């Protein structure tokens, strides 16, 4: 018979092994794509138009398209998201409407990405007649991104000690002045982190832009917001499932570029968070 401390020891080891089972595949995915994709990366791949049935040339329009979509998402989602977060953290009392609002945001966070695609198709592409376009795609992605920004920004605002608000009020500050001069500056790093996390999700999503923005093959930069565009995640989907005989080098190269963009945004968010957490005075 083994005693209960040996049981504990074995148990802890088992938990460690399970954690490894969780983590190792992540390393393997990232490592695999880096190793197989790095050979494809060169100046031409990043800056040239695709040609030869997308098997040759570069992925420049897909990169630009993704950046455009992210930019469009940011323009809409940042003000709406921060507004929502300020309202929930600083103004909202526990009323029926506030509860409804919270439920709505939780629900927005849970709507499947492909359903966002359907919604964007129904409202922006068809009803508002934006067509399959950067505009329709950005708006769809923005609404999808909203709950991420709202909830992280709200958390950042709530982390600012309530005493600061009290002090500001006691010095004759209105509520908005307290928010504007004390709370927002203190919460800014957290809010920026939330924005980046939301935008990186927008950068990596495929389903919402499938029917709202993405072009299968369009070897140029969109000339207006009302034109469709190529985008990295959709391009990766296309060249790995829709085009037979695609060289793996190009597939992995595309995956690597997408992964690099998304993970470096992730890293920036993590750096901002840890840097300001160490620096803040409370």
């Amino acid at each position, binding site marked *: 018979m083994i005693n*209960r401390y040996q049981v*504990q020891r074995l148990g802890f080891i088992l*938990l460690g092994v*399970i*954690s490894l*089972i*969780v*983590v190792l*595949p*992540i390393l393997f995915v990232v490592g695999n*794509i880096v190793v197989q994709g790095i050979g494809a990366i060169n100046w031409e791949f990043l800056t040239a138009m695709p040609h030869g049935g997308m098997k040759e040339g570069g992925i420049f329009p897909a990169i630009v398209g993704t950046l455009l979509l992210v930019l469009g998402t940011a323009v809409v989602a940042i003000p709406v998201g921060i*507004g*929502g977060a*300020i*309202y929930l*953290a600083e*103004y*909202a009392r526990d009323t029926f409407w506030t*509860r409804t*609002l919270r*439920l*709505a*945001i*939780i*629900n*927005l966070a*849970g*709507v*499947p*990405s*492909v*359903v966002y*695609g*359907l*919604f964007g*198709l*129904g409202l922006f592409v068809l*009803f508002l007649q934006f067509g399959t376009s950067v505009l329709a795609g950005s708006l769809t992605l923005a*609404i999808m991104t909203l709950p991420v920004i*709202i909830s992280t920004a709200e958390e950042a605002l*709530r982390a*600012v000690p*309530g005493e600061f608000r009290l002090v500001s009020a006691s010095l004759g500050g*209105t*509520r908005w002045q307290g928010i504007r001069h004390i709370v927002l500056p203190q919460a800014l790093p957290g809010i920026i982190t939330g924005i980046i996390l939301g935008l*990186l999700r927008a950068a*990596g999503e*495929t389903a919402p832009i499938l029917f709202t923005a993405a072009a299968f093959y369009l070897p140029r930069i969109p000339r207006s917001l009302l034109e469709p565009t190529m985008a990295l*995640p959709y391009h*990766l*989907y296309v060249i790995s*499932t829709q085009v037979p005989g695609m060289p793996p080098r190009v*597939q992995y190269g595309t*995956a690597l570029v*997408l*992964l690099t963009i*998304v*993970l470096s945004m*992730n890293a920036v968010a*993590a750096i901002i968070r840890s840097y300001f957490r160490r620096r803040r005075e409370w």
Partner: protein
Amino acid sequence: MGKPEFLSRPSHPRWGEFVIESTIRVLAFSSIGFVILIFFFLVREGIPIFWEISPENLFGTRWYPTFGLFGTLPLILGSLLVTVTAILIALPLGVATAVFVREVAPNWAREILKPMIEILAGIPSVVLGFFGMTVVAPLVREVLGAPTGLTAFTGALILAYMALPTIISVAEDALDAVPKSYRDAGLAMGATQWQTIWRVVVPAARSGIVTAVMLGLGRAIGETMAVMMVTGNAARMPLTLDSLFRPVRTMTATIAAEMGEVAQGSVHYHALFGIGIILFVITFIINAMAAVTIFKKPRRGGLR
């Protein structure tokens, strides 16, 4: 004595602030508008399917749009099979990892694990799908000796990993919320840390863990790209025991794969929006249930 005007309203009202605060309010409540808009447009484009075809057809077992057969049952069951299997894989892994990170792991291990899980949360679904196609599926085929590696199981495996960051972080919060006194009480009664974790701490955190599972479930059932790329997309009824190791087709994959090819306003088009309604309703219910536990969490901040 005293200055009589001292308490009265300022000579210039604070219009700027009024405008800003109203704007904030409008921006906040636009979220409710978006949910309504989403539901409205899904219904507007999808509701005709419920009278265009018979209910027997709609909830039949065969999805062959070219032949006017729009049986959604295999798609719903396909989604269920993949999702439930994914959660069955992810739940033990996720809870064990959360317990390890929160209760057991030395600091250095935590410092490695947490960022790794954040990376996993950041990997786009299409990249995981690509990896699943090129690496996991061939592996599954070889191990099973099956004709194809694009199976429900492959999808569930990928989905499980996609649900893990959600499950781990919510479960961690739940463990974190268990008061230290519970642990002390367990240890004081002579239990080992191991016994305390499984008999005191985890049971005390179970409502949070249920939330974690709900949110993971919501995430998994709505996942599209990765699932579409690795499950083989055969719209068959997954009723036999070996269905898990055969191709299957989910609701999300059906919409994503077919919407590009249908004519606007056709029966097929309405059917795809109809599936969207079903998905929206399912995730709404799951998330509302998870929200019930979230609402109970105490909040801080604001003027007190």
